[in-house]
């Protein structure tokens, strides 16, 4: 009997915990994999999963983004896209474009590619955007004084983008690590270094910062790209104060290819971090 009571108490606590979970988590999502490279003949699949607590409708679309010298990804309106970007949008096909999923229901998105004859060699890229279509904006949460105040309901429409890259022809690229320094701002400390790229495709890989005599890497950052539209970028990685302090001085910075592609070294450099 006591055990039954305990079980009930647990159940009640569980129910209460559930109630306290905010209800606006509709639209949360999972996407895998996080990067797609196509050689022009074979397609692939991307998985979208509704990890929210409620059913949600997701839209899938292709966006044009350009990398900035600071390492950001600027959104470009389709009307402002250049020929290569338009070509990328045209050669990548996918389905479905809209799907309603109950919680924990995955959906496979098929991605196909068709490279028109005569397409110049190069790397063609678009960014696949997955995002939930919001419900009608919910009314205000808090009561306001009658007739006098204004109340605000701001609904985020949030999503994930992954690059879809089509490579046409024999492509090659190299990268070189430049100066490295630690910076401080209102937002906190950051480890920065310059990365230059040559060739006709993007470079992509992981960064590892080590110091002779220190067993553990000082810093590891995975998935750093330099896209073909830029020849150089700054890599700026936010780090905690104590890590920033440790990074100052002589270090070895290694930029390696993705582990799934063998992890070969792209560039390696000894730098004194200022």
């Amino acid at each position, binding site marked *: 009997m006591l055990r039954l009571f305990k079980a009930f108490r647990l159940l009640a606590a569980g129910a209460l915990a559930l109630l306290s979970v905010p209800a606006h988590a509709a639209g949360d999502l999972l996407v895998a994999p*996080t990067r797609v490279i196509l050689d022009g003949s074979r397609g692939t699949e991307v998985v979208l999963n509704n990890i929210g607590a409620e059913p949600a409708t997701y839209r899938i679309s292709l966006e044009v983004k350009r990398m900035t010298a*600071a390492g950001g990804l600027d959104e470009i309106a389709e009307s402002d896209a250049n020929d290569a970007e338009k070509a990328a949008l045209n050669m990548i096909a996918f389905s479905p474009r809209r799907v309603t999923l109950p919680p924990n229901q995955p959906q496979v998105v098929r991605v196909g590619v068709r490279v028109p004859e005569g397409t110049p060699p190069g790397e063609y890229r678009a960014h696949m955007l997955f995002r939930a279509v919001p419900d009608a904006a919910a009314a205000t949460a808090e009561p306001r004084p009658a007739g006098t105040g204004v109340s605000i*309901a701001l609904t985020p429409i949030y*999503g994930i983008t992954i690059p879809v890259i089509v490579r046409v022809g024999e492509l090659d690229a190299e990268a070189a690590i430049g100066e490295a320094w630690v910076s401080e701002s209102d937002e906190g400390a950051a480890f920065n270094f310059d990365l230059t790229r040559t060739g006709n495709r993007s470079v992509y890989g992981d960064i590892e910062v080590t110091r002779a005599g220190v067993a553990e890497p000082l810093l590891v950052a995975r998935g*750093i790209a330099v896209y073909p539209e830029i020849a150089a970028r700054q890599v700026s990685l936010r*780090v905690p104060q104590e890590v920033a302090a440790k990074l100052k001085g002589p270090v070895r910075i290694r930029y390696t290819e993705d582990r799934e592609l063998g992890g070969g070294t792209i560039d390696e450099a000894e730098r004194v971090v200022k």
Partner: protein
Amino acid sequence: MGWDFHSDFDHLSNQGTNHMRTTGMKRALLGAAIAAFAFNASAAHAATATGTATAKILRQITLTNTSDLQFATIISGATASTVSVSTAGAVSCGAGLTCTGTTTAANFNVNGTEGAVVVVGGDANVTLNGSLGGSMTSSLTYSNATITLGASGGSFQVGGTLNVGANQTAGDYSGTFNVTANYQ
């Protein structure tokens, strides 16, 4: 069923009074066990003949929204002013305004491969339309331009500065803004 196979064998050596009955039962059990074994063997054989099972683990990213950007309730004044909610959720109520209620910054959690660098993007401005007419604009500020995911992922926050007009029309104002977590 509750039958213990080993204890049945013990009975067999005991030559007990109900020997025949237990033997019969044992035969039935043994037969069932052998049949099951044979079935397993053929199933296993079939599996090796047709190929090996494979499972590919894909790298993933998840994005969850755990709190909204809340300016709470504002009573406008005779002159235009602003209300700011920092990315930490702290409110700064401009001169001439009265701000009540709890403000929060929007929070998003990102999960994925440890060490992965995720680029945060989103609208810099949003327009809010009132239920009784009128509109307001708000600029948006993001806590991070990039996040390096740790073992338990990472998060970023969105705050904003709301421009409240002189004698802003009362009502419920709503608007939407876009936020994305981008893999490079």
